[in-house]
């Protein structure tokens, strides 16, 4: 079921000729659009307004009044710059590893396994299977596999592959591992949908013209699968940058691995410092928008969106 959302591209434009103008269109569009204006657009505006608020003069903790205090932004940047850098550092690293792991997997399912449809469907079901089990539970499973008393860690220590006082959970490694693991299906599915349509005759033509396998891969396979690479990296990078489950202390993180999501959550739900949480959210969203638009421009796939 999840394939549907990732695999479908825009509707073919050949049907344009039969399209007609009608007030029915407005009737069909209005309720949904209105809903998104109320519960998607308006909240973003209210997030922006909240980010400039100041504490209410005679109010309790958590009471703020409208103002235009742009220093809220410089305050949160100076207080949380390590979290901001860490968020993007972790997200980019996890996206990179997810791509390295997913590309050969997607190539195997989409190209090599074509001759065996049953194997292909089985592998695809295995790729989406993690979606069917709670995100939090599968992250906790890794926490327990990596815990100090676990079989894996004690045997690594017995083999002296790990220092006796070392920990795996609570480190940058375990957070990046968790992010990579959790977003591999988001990377693999779009890669699969483009590689599945890859015409292997182009690859044969390349090697017929005496290109080395590496050269064929770099000059033919990669460019042809670019739409999948871009879609997969975006579907991994955006949620990974905003994630706070993997990095949280109760899951794979520690005090030194907190990401932006963790401090946004803390400011909203624990400290009740809503302007700080809102300012951080706006910074996160704008940084993502800037990075994504540069990336999409550079990779020459603007028409995909």
């Amino acid at each position, binding site marked *: 079921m999840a394939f549907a959302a990732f695999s479908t591209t825009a509707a073919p434009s050949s*049907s344009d000729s039969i399209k007609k103008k009608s007030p029915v269109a407005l009737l069909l569009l209005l309720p949904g659009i209105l809903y998104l204006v109320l519960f998607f657009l308006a909240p973003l505006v209210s*997030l922006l307004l909240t980010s400039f608020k100041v504490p209410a003069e005679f109010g309790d903790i958590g009471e703020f009044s409208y103002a235009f205090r742009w220093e809220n932004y410089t305050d949160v940047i100076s207080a949380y710059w390590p979290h901001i850098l860490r968020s993007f550092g972790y997200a980019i690293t996890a996206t990179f590893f997810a791509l390295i792991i997913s590309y050969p997997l997607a190539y195997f399912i989409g190209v090599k396994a074509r001759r065996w449809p049953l194997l292909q469907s089985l592998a695809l079901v295995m790729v989406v299977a993690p979606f069917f089990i709670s995100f939090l539970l599968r*992250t906790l*499973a890794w926490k327990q596999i990596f815990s100090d008393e676990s079989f894996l860690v004690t045997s690594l220590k017995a083999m002296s592959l790990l220092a006796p006082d070392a920990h795996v959970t609570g480190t940058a490694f375990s957070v990046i591992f968790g992010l990579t693991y959790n977003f591999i299906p988001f990377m693999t599915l779009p890669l699969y949908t483009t590689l599945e349509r890859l015409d292997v005759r182009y690859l044969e033509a390349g090697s017929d013209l005496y290109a080395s396998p590496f050269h064929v891969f770099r000059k033919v396979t990669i460019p042809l699968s670019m739409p999948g690479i871009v879609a997969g990296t975006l579907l991994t990078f955006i949620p990974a940058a*905003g994630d706070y489950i993997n990095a949280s202390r109760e899951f794979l993180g520690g005090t030194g691995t907190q990401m932006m999501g963790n401090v946004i959550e803390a400011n909203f739900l624990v400290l009740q410092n809503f302007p700080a949480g809102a300012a951080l959210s706006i910074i996160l969203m704008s940084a993502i928008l800037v990075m994504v638009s540069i990336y999409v421009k550079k990779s020459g796939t603007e028409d995909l969106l």
Partner: protein
Amino acid sequence: MKHSISKWVLPAYGALALLILMIPIGYTFVYSFNDSLKSNITWRGFTFDKWLNVCNVQNGAVCEAFGNSIFIGVVATVLATTLGTMIAIAMVRYRFKFRSQLSLFLFLPMATPEVVLGAGLAAQFLSIGVPKDMLTIILAHTMFCISFVVVAVKARVASLDPALEEAGRDLYGSALQVFLRITFPLLLPGILAAALLSFALSFDDFIITNFNSGAVSTFPKYIWVSAARGIPAEANVLASAVFILALIVVVTVQVSGAARAKRLEKLHQAGVN
């Protein structure tokens, strides 16, 4: 010699990647049979007890959270599927101004990090003074499901042959009759797939829920809250049961889809001959 080794590298790599993907699923499933006490960390022996008495732990807190998640998922799915399907039909079938702007607008909720969506709604509910409860969770879930429904249903509408509807109108069917008798039944598989996707998204959502749930517990939120003091094996039981159910649904859909494709192929061949 070199060739035969390189032939096996890719399948072996793929198999290893798939195996790693399966590890936490296997772990969760195996530990649902653990004869554990309060927390479910060390293996204490095999038992069916947790499967048979799922709701007995902590006065049924797990089951209450699970029930809330199902209720929220169903209501949000019905709302999002209705609104999203209407948008999808309009976008494929009608011409109107600001089409491309609308596409971008529908794409944005999918490209916004969940923490921003959650914080935004929390800020909005706070500033207009709406208390956080079941309703705010449903409103939030419906919002982020709509765009996914539009994407999934749009593909189905685009593949629909307009000549079928024209035929209905030629035979003096009213607009409503054409929609109910022709358009809707043909769109149904796409709508059902979109509904399943939206239920799955809602059911497993934690981040947006955490910002807008107040005191209401959902299944993911229950796991988050209990993570500090240990999660009972009953949570593994419910998650494993959902996993098995989802697997059955997916396999059934795949198998019936393949069977239908075969049947159509046969019909087609019979027609050609």
